[in-house]
């Protein structure tokens, strides 16, 4: 068997890449892609634990996470489209209306 720690390590690396992507990148759509990456890394982690402990609860939770991720993407992209219609840009550096 592949050791559990490989899966967890991969999951952590993917999560970190996702976080850095959220914090650094300018394009709103790319930020959403990073959020998806974070969610999928967590899915990976859940499945790994589920397989190694024999408890199916982890895999069932993954179903929930996938569904929620999909819904969230749909709503998020709708917001970006509305934003684009107003500001004609998806560069979030230019969306700072709630500044002090």
């Amino acid at each position, binding site marked *: 068997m592949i050791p559990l720690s490989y899966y967890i390590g991969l999951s952590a690396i993917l999560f970190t890449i996702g976080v850095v992507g959220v914090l650094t990148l300018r394009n709103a759509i790319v930020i959403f892609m990073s959020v998806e990456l974070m969610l999928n890394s967590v899915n990976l982690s859940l499945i790994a634990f589920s397989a190694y402990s024999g408890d199916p609860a982890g895999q069932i939770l993954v179903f929930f996470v996938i569904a929620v991720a999909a819904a969230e993407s749909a709503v998020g992209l709708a917001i970006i489209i509305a934003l684009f219609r107003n500001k004609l840009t998806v560069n979030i*550096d230019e969306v700072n209306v709630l*500044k002090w």
Partner: protein
Amino acid sequence: MQSLIVCVVAFPIIGVLINGLLGSLIQKKLGERVVGIIGSAAIGFSFVCAILIFANMLGQPADQRKQAYDIYNWISTGSLSVGVSYLIDQLSIVMLLIVTGVSFFIHVYSIGYMHGDRGVFRFFTYMNLFVFAMLNLILADNYLLMFLGWEGVGLCSYLLIGFWYDRKFEGVGITWTGDAGMKAFIVNRIGDFAFLIGMFIVFMNFGSFNFDTVLGGASSRFASGDSTVTWIAILFFIGATGKSAQIPLYIWLPDAMAGPTPVSALIHAATMVTAGVYMIARSAVLYALAPTAMLIVAIIGAVTAIYAATMGLVQNDIKKVLAYSTISQLGYMFLAMGVGAFGAGVFHLMTHAFFKALLFLGAGAIMHALHNEQDLRNMGGLKTLMPGTYKTFLLASLAIAGIPPLAGFFSKDEILSYSFASSPILWSIGAITAFLTAFYIFRLFIMAFEGKPRFDIHHLHVHDAPATMLIPLWVLGILSVVGGWIGIPSILGGGENFDKFLAPVFEHAQAKMPTVYFTEASTDYILMIVSVALCVAGIYLAYVAYRKRPELSARLRRGAGDLYEILLNKYYIDEIYRTIVVQPLVYVSDRYLSRGLDEIIIDGTVNGTAKIVRFFGRILRRIQTGLVQNYALSFVIGIIIIVGFLIYAR
């Protein structure tokens, strides 16, 4: 009996409510007469109740005439328990009869005097409120309720002095009549401060304000000459100097003449100013235990009497002469209190109420007829034009001058007799004052009524006062004549009924008097003859100077020159007070309290707090960049810190 007493106090307050709340309406719809009738009737009913209470009291034996009635439990907390309780004894019934009786006639007089004024309902409301407060003062059976009445009459004095609030009035530092009212109230307040401190000391020592507790227990608690009781007595007396216009707090009374004349008659002659005398009479035991305080009272009383009389000699405003006369006569009452003649002081209070009220009302009638002329130099010749006023005013003048058998003679003479027994110096001050009194009152009388009219009789149609004003004048006139007959001393064949009636009230005090004052009958006769002689001399001198050879008075005035100016300007006392007391106080108040404490410190602190908040806010708000990624960064940092704690800080 209890309901009678409640009625006495309730009727005036009902008058206040009716005239106060509905008065404006009543005056418009039913006329000012109705307003006046409501106001007078309220006092009239009180007077009737007072007479009934008095009749009831006369039916009791002398040692059972004192009775306290608890009406309402006012304060009862912890160690302080004070009730609205009224004490009916000989002293309070005398005061009650004087206050309700004289008030009633002055109210009736006011119906005529205030005719045509647009605020008649306000006038009667304030007058009834005044009587209510005064009744509480004299009927109270504890110091706190008395103080309530004390402050209440001060308030009404302020309201009534400034009644014509849009009228100007000449005075040192005074422009409007309201300023004169403020002066009265503020100067009174200074005295009240001392009174309050005295009350606090009383409470500290007795745990109660009740007269029975305090005055009954004073003899056993304090030795004669004890410093505590001396302080209480002195502080109370300072309060009395404020309310009863003695040195040094008398300055408000001449300026109080800014108010309508019935106000001057009622408040500043017959009732309110006597509150101080009453208070000392009530607290007689405390004074008897403090000979030093009594000496102070006597000296200040005597000095005030002569000091005010000198100023009354030269004033040209008729009301000012009477104001100084009031101060002077109050000095007599305090002199009486100071030498232990408590009954005589109250006797003079009563006779003075009669003739001084009459003098003021008469002056009001003159002013009414001459269209508010107050300057004596513009009067004259009213003897034939206003016969009723002339006759009653003459009776009052003879009474105050002390001519027997009118009222003033008996009361003043009793005081002088006791003063002589105590100290011939005090007596001589009193005797000289009597001479001056006779002189200034007849100067006023002659200048107003005798001689040729010094005003334009063709343009000013002068007629005597209407019935509503004349009847009270006559009633008071008769009282000025016969009022003294209840106190005729035994050496003249009388029964001294007044003193005997009041004796049980002053029993405790008399027991503690340091020496027994006793004058031989022959000395008394001589004193009497001397005082009558002085009075007749005063009257004659006034007659000569103002009627027979008026050029004499003009020469005297020119000769006296500077002295005349000093007297006319009231020894410049208002100016002196202004420089020494008022201006420094105003300066300190303005610079240090208003600007320094209020603006700089308090406002500064409050505004400063706001400034600090704004300063930090300006720095901290920069966190709001509006960039979502910055917020997300703070999430991540937070998570890292928390996870770090969870893993490593276990």
